[in-house]
């Protein structure tokens, strides 16, 4: 997908439809690789900021994540999610950062984008599909479309990609 996997060193924005979606199923293979490590990289920390529900440890384990490397951050107000993501990006202590956020000002997004460009961190900002019209400095912008029907598949629409061409990919989830 995306011609060589998810990009690091730049902000990825993933837009989802309101309510339950499949974003974590889409992202979990990367989270698994980061938390477990492999022959070339050591296990690293990942951070889930302001998740919409309670991340269920047995489910994450079923996906293959190493739970001892997962951090969950709860926030009281929406603005804190962006602040926490900025702090995490700035520290360089986590290899993967996923934040669920609502409205985000241009300035805040620009700062996240600049920070994300400084280190090889995989950072994903998850927002509602209604923000698609807003301009965003993110390096990669995706929208997730659920496929009604029986197949465990989702469509990932790449509508902005600074590195490669845009397009649509169909992904079968485990």
């Amino acid at each position, binding site marked *: 997908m995306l011609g060589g996997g998810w990009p690091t060193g730049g902000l990825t924005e993933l837009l989802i439809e309101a309510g*339950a979606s499949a974003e974590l199923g889409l992202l979990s293979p990367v989270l698994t690789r980061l938390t477990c490590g492999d022959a070339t990289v050591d296990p690293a920390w990942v951070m889930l900021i302001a998740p919409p529900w309670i991340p269920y440890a047995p489910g994450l384990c*079923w996906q*293959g994540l190493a739970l001892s490397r997962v951090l969950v951050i709860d926030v009281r107000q929406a603005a804190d999610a962006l602040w926490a993501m900025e702090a995490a990006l700035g520290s360089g202590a986590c290899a993967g950062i996923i934040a669920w956020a609502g409205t985000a000002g241009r300035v805040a997004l620009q700062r996240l984008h600049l920070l994300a460009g400084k280190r090889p961190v995989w950072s994903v900002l998850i927002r509602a599909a209604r923000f698609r019209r807003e301009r965003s400095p993110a390096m990669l912008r995706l929208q997730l479309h659920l496929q009604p029907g029986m197949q465990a598949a989702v469509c990932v629409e790449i509508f902005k990609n600074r590195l490669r061409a845009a397009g649509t990919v169909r992904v079968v989830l485990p």
Partner: protein
Amino acid sequence: MSSSSPLWLCAWLPAGPLEAIVMEQLAGWAAGFTPGVSIEADQALLLEIRGSLQLFGGPERIQTLLRQGLHACGHEPVISCTPTVRGSLWLARAGIECTLLTRDELRHRLLPVSVEHLGWPAATMKMLAQMGIRTLGECVRLPRQGFARRFGPARLHELDQGFGRSPELRRPHVVPEHFADTLELPVETTCVDALLAGFQRLLSRLGERLKSRQASAETLQCDLRHPDGSHTELHIRLCRPAASAAAFTELLRLRLGALVLPAPVTLLVLKARLSTGQEATGSDLLGRELQADSDLSGLLERLRARLGRHAVRGLALVDEYRPERAWRPVSNPLGTNRRVSRQAPGCRPVWILPVPQLLQRAAGQPVHDGALCLERGPERIETGWWDGDDIRRDYYVARNRRGVRLWVYQDLRSVANWYLHGIFG
């Protein structure tokens, strides 16, 4: 006897157990002879003096100085010095003052000592008396296996330690030390920058102290005194002790920014409890890992300072069939071990609802954003009868009209009610 094997000095105070605080004071004073000081049952000080022999000029000299010091405090110690902790302790309890440098000498002196100086419980002493065992020599001549069976392996281990057949480690008594300093502000103020500048001066003094003592601090108490005598308190806690005050500055800035002061501030007080031992710095083989962890602990401290202590957590599995209890939050994710656990309990969703949500039904089938199509199941979970919180459920993976996969169950104990419990995705 090698020059690196330990030499233990025991100062027994026959006058009886003393107050714990008195013993701590004495231990603090005795730390002037060696860092390896520990307290035994509030009645004896144990000093590991091998490393201090050259400095003080031999064991006799240390004994003399220790005796003089304890005399000055009104204590009459019995002092004994041998290669083992328990050997010194037993001899001192028996009232025998001696300096023995080898295990053989120790063994000869211990053999005639009465078993009553072992400090064992009355029941054990009665059994020994019934067997006609009066001295340590008679004790160690008993068959080892029979001794362990009769009195427990721990007692045999104590004997081995006393005679130097197995090593004994003692955790040194840590002498707590406090830092407290105040700063009078030139003018009354509520300005955060001015307060922070004041605290920074106090923090730099704390930093100097930490450096000179090779100590570290983990918690900080900041008092902001108001003109009417009242004060506002701030407590700052790090994930791990820091050897420099810089770690506190950023946290203090965040906390002061969020603080609502009831009145202007005239005086700043900074208090910290110091502990010995510097923090590990990334200079060994694992240097990179340590550095990454210190970055992470700094990040978690910042997040906690702004979002609250419970906002940051890790996740762990719990061995439990009831889905809602099969996990727990971990309040100190850095402290957990790094073992990669991969035993998954079966197909489970990545999200769980805090409380299962009752689903509407249409024509007997569960509905959630349209009729649900049951894709996989049932997985029966029936457990918990022993603690009265038992469950009997059939779990299914279902898909709704929009294509969202849900984890639903049918409660078999009530009238076939359906609940939404988790979301795949």
